[in-house]
C-alpha cells in the first residue's frame, strides 16, 4: 500500500505505532523525517487575514507616526532648555499626534466588514487580544492627543493665552505613554496569529515595528520650521532607529529560515518588502545619513532626503509585511512546515 505520492516512509509509518504523536514524543528524528511535504492537493491550510494590506498598513503607519511623535515631542519639551528649540518640535508633534485618532481610526472602521458595529470593540477588554489592547490604547491616546491638539490650536490662535500651555504640559505625559503603546502594539497584533511569517519571530518583529515608528516620527518632526541643531539631533535619532530596524530585519529573516519557512521570503509581497521597504526605506536613508556625516560637513539636504525615504519606507514596510504574511498563510507548504513540532515553544516541546 505504499504510495509514491506521500513518499515511502510516510505512507508506512505515518506516526509512531502506539499513537504517539508530535508534541508528546518530543522532536524525535523520525517525526521530523516523516513529513515529506505532503499537502491536501495543494490547498491552503490556513485562511489569510481578511484585511486590506493598504488600509490596515496605513493605520499601522499612522499609529506609529502619531504615537512616536507624541513621545518624542514630549521628550523634547521636557529636555530642551531654550523655548525656541522645543516650541516648533512640540507644535509639530501635537498636530502629528492627531493623525492616528482621526484618519487612523477611520481606516480601522473602514476595514471592518460590519463597520456600523465598530463600537462593539468597546464591549470588552481582553489581554489575550492585541486588537482589544490596541482599541483601549488608541482610545486613551486619542483623549490625550486630542487635548494636546486643542491646546495647540488655541496657542496658535492666541499665543498670549496661558491655559493652553498648561493643558499641553499635562496632556503630553499620557499622550507619550499611550503613544509608546500604539507605536508597537501593532507588532503583537500580527504576531499573535497563526500566520507563519507574522508569528515566526514575535520579538524581532516587535523591534522592527517599534524602531520603524520612531524613525518616521524623527523624520517627520524635523520640518523646516524646526531649528537646525534640533533637526540634526532628530537626524541622529533617525539614523539610530534605522540601524536598529536594519538589524531586526536581518534577525527576522534568519528566524524565518530557522523555522524552516525561508521559502516564504521569496513571494511577491516579500520582494516588495525587501526592495521598497528594506532597500529604499532603510538601507538607502541610513547610507545617506552616514555619508553626510563621513563627508565632514553635514548636509541638511541629505538629511532631509533620508527623512523622506525613511517615511515612505516605513509605510511600504507596514503594507508589504501585512501582504507578506497573508501570502504565507495561503501557502500550505509554508503553514504546514511552520506547524511542525520543532517550532513549538521550547518549554512545551
Amino acid at each position, binding site marked *: *500500500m505504499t*504510495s*509514491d505520492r*506521500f513518499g515511502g516512509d510516510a505512507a508506512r509509518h*505515518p506516526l509512531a*505505532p502506539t*499513537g504517539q*504523536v*508530535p*508534541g*508528546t514524543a518530543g522532536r524525535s528524528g523520525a517525526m521530523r523525517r516523516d*513529513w515529506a511535504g505532503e499537502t*491536501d492537493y495543494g490547498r*491552503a*491550510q*490556513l*485562511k*489569510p*487575514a*481578511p484585511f486590506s494590506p493598504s488600509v490596515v498598513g496605513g493605520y499601522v503607519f499612522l499609529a506609529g507616526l502619531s504615537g512616536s511623535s507624541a*513621545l518624542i515631542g514630549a521628550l*523634547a519639551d521636557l529636555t530642551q532648555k531654550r523655548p525656541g528649540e522645543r516650541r516648533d518640535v512640540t507644535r509639530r508633534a501635537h498636530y502629528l499626534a492627531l493623525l492616528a485618532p482621526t484618519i487612523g481610526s477611520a481606516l480601522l472602521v473602514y*476595514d*471592518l*466588514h*460590519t*463597520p456600523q*458595529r*465598530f463600537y*462593539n*470593540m468597546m464591549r470588552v477588554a*481582553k489581554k*489575550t*487580544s492585541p486588537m482589544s*489592547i490596541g*482599541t483601549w490604547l488608541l482610545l486613551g491616546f486619542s483623549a490625550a492627543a486630542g487635548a494636546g491638539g486643542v491646546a495647540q490650536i488655541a496657542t496658535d490662535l492666541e499665543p498670549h493665552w496661558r491655559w493652553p500651555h498648561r493643558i499641553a504640559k499635562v496632556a503630553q505625559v499620557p499622550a507619550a505613554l499611550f503613544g*509608546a503603546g500604539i507605536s*508597537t502594539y501593532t507588532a*503583537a*497584533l500580527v*504576531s*499573535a*496569529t*497563526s500566520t507563519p511569517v507574522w*508569528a515566526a519571530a*514575535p*520579538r524581532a518583529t*516587535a523591534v522592527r515595528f*517599534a524602531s520603524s515608528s520612531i524613525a518616521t516620527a*524623527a523624520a517627520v518632526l524635523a520640518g523646516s520650521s524646526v531649528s537646525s*541643531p534640533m533637526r540634526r539631533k532628530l537626524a541622529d*535619532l533617525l539614523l*539610530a532607529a534605522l540601524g536598529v530596524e536594519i538589524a531586526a530585519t536581518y534577525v527576522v529573516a534568519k528566524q524565518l529560515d530557522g523555522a524552516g519557512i525561508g521559502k516564504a521570503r521569496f513571494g511577491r509581497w516579500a520582494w516588495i518588502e525587501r526592495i521598497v521597504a528594506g532597500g529604499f526605506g532603510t538601507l538607502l536613508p541610513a547610507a545617506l545619513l552616514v555619508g553626510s556625516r563621513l563627508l565632514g560637513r553635514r548636509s541638511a539636504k541629505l538629511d532631509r532626503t533620508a527623512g523622506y525615504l525613511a517615511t515612505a519606507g516605513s509605510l511600504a514596510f507596514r503594507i508589504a509585511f501585512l501582504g507578506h504574511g497573508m501570502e504565507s*498563510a495561503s501557502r500550505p507548504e509554508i503553514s*504546514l512546515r511552520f*506547524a*511542525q*513540532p520543532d517550532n*513549538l515553544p521550547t518549554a*512545551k516541546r
Partner: protein
Amino acid sequence: MGLHERIHHYPQSDLDGVIPNESELTGGVTIEPGRSYGFFTDTTVCIGCKACEVACKEWNNLPADSIGLTGQSFDNTGMLSANTWRHVAFVEREGDRGVRAAEQAPFQSGWLMMSDVCKHCHNAPCLEACPTGAIFKTEFDTVVVQQDICNGCGYCVPACPFGVVALNEVDGKVHKCTLCYDRLKGGLEPACAKACPTESIQFGELSDLHEKARERIGVLHERGVEQAYLYGTPDGPGATGDLGHLNAFFLLTERPEVYNLPAAPTRASNRVRPSLTTGVATIGALALLAIGLFSSDRGEGR
C-alpha cells in the same frame, strides 16, 4: 448501541413536537449544561457519503458555496468556509501525481476520508483574539460566534491555527460550526452526528468520547492498523502549543498534513507578551537615546 427503551414511547411517524432529550434516543447522550461536549470523528469508518455536510447545511440554513468540480478526487467542497461547516476530505492514496492506479489491493479503500469540522479548542485562539466578545464559550464547552455582536473585524480568521473560521463577505460577519448550539439547548444531538450513517461522527460528553476513542485505537492496533492514532486528545498532535485539547478530535491513519491538519499548532495569544515587552523595550531604549541627544549641547554652535 442498543435501542433506548424510551424509543417505544414514540411509535408514530408524525410527532407533535420535539422529543424531550432526543439525543438520548439517537446518540445515547444526555445533554446538560455545565458539561463538556464534542465530536469524535473516526475517519476509518467514514464512507464519504457527505450526509454530515448536507445535514449541516439543512439545519443551519447555509447556502451552497460552489457547484463546480475541483477535479481533485471526489471532493468538490474543497474546504471549510463561512457557509460550509463540515467538509469531507477525500484523499486518494493510490496512484502517482494525480494519475489513478489501474489496480487496487483487495479489501482496501483507495481513499482516506475525513469529515473536517471546527475543533472547538479548549484554549481557542479565535475566542482569545476576538476584540468584541462575540466569540464565547457556551455552557456546553463549545466555541460559538454571536452573530448579533460580531462586527466583522476578521481578526479571528488568522488567529485560527486550523483555517476554520471564515468571513462571509455578503453579511460581513464570521461564521463557523456552532456544534449546533441551538440543538444542544433543545436536547438534540448535532445534525451532522445524527445524520452520520456509520458513526464516523460521534457526539458525546468529552470524557466518554476519549474513552471510546482509546478503545477504538486498541481494537485497530490489534487488527494490525498500527498507524491509527488520535489527533486532538490532550497532549496529542493538534493539541500542542498550549491549545489544551480539541473538543472535536479525530482518529487518523496518516500524517496530519495529509488531511490538511497542522501537526503541531500553537496558541497565538502566547505571543502577545513577548511581542509587547520587546516592542516597549525598543521604544524605551530609543527614547533614552533621544533624551541623551536632546540634552547634549553638541552641534548647537555650528
